[in-house]
């Protein structure tokens, strides 16, 4: 895990997470620019990190490694958290249709650290096979007839 501290003490984190989806095309001439520029994905089955719920964090793609079929993502804790909107009696309010209402507030610094810790534990606390099982997604697929480009 790589933890970076940006200006204004914003803490971010990098994780490596397995990829799923289907590669539709390679762009080797663009691969040197990093990110996802070396490949295109199937629009109906896009190349993406396995869709496990990382919790209240956002992430941006940093790079894709086709040798290990993983993505490096930069994870940032969310600034806001949602919690039940309670009435005077301490009961959660409902709208006219009976749906439970929520309100958002700013997350504390401690909560933000816990958001990152949750994501880290989830990804680094499981093997690749376990993450594929949790997400119920298959391994990254390559264009038919071309399975020679990396992949483990």
């Amino acid at each position, binding site marked *: 895990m790589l933890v970076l501290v940006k200006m204004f003490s914003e803490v971010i984190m990098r994780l490596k997470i397995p990829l799923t989806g289907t590669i539709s095309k390679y762009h080797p001439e663009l691969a040197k*620019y990093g990110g996802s520029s070396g490949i295109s994905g199937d629009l109906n089955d896009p190349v993406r990190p396995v869709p496990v719920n990382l919790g209240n*964090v956002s*992430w941006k793609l940093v790079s894709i490694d086709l040798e290990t079929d993983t993505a490096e993502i930069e994870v940032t804790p*969310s600034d806001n958290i949602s919690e039940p909107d309670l009435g005077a009696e301490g009961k959660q309010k409902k709208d006219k249709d009976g749906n*439970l209402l929520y309100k*958002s507030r700013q997350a504390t610094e401690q909560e933000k650290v816990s*958001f990152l810790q949750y994501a880290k534990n989830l990804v680094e606390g499981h093997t690749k096979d376990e993450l594929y099982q949790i997400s119920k997604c298959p391994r990254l697929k390559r264009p038919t007839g071309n399975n020679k480009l990396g992949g483990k």
Partner: protein
Amino acid sequence: MSVFINGVDKQSVDVNAVQVKQSLSGANSNVNKGVYDATLLETVDGDLAVGNIKAGITIFGKDGTLAMTMTHDVQGSDVDGQGSIGSVDWYLETTGDIAAGANVTLLTTTIDCAQATVIEAAYFIESFVNNANTVKLQLYIDGVAQGETGFIVALLGYLYYDIGYGSVASGARIVYLNAHNYDVVFADKVKFAGGLFAGACKNV
């Protein structure tokens, strides 16, 4: 052959020894032989303005400022019509129920830029009915996930993705903005307004 009249060298284009006065026209690109009064090109054709030139391109010394626009193809029903905020076209959508575990496309668009560009996805959540901490927005470019928001509990959010130099070669690239419900038990509903737009195309 040079012709001098009253000691002043004249251009060689003349009819019956009389110089032909020429003028530029915004209707065509012709620059005929002759003499011209001093002028400014943008006076000849008012469309020669920085706002009409694509950003990153310079024409006759005018640096373009026009950000590339995108066409929008809104998925689902456009319930409340559309407005605009700045240069962004916003589309107000009620997504309907996002089924448990489902991934729904909110907006899709196509970009075509010969060089690098910046893709920005802005969203405004007017209201949401969900079990809290379940729905996130995801940005896909060219069939590859570029990023994901935190749970959309705040009413205003902004996704900004610089997809970097060389990431977008010439040719169309399809961009999706999706909503993903991570709750595998309950469906969620989000009233969403958002837009996808591209910043200036940059040269590598």
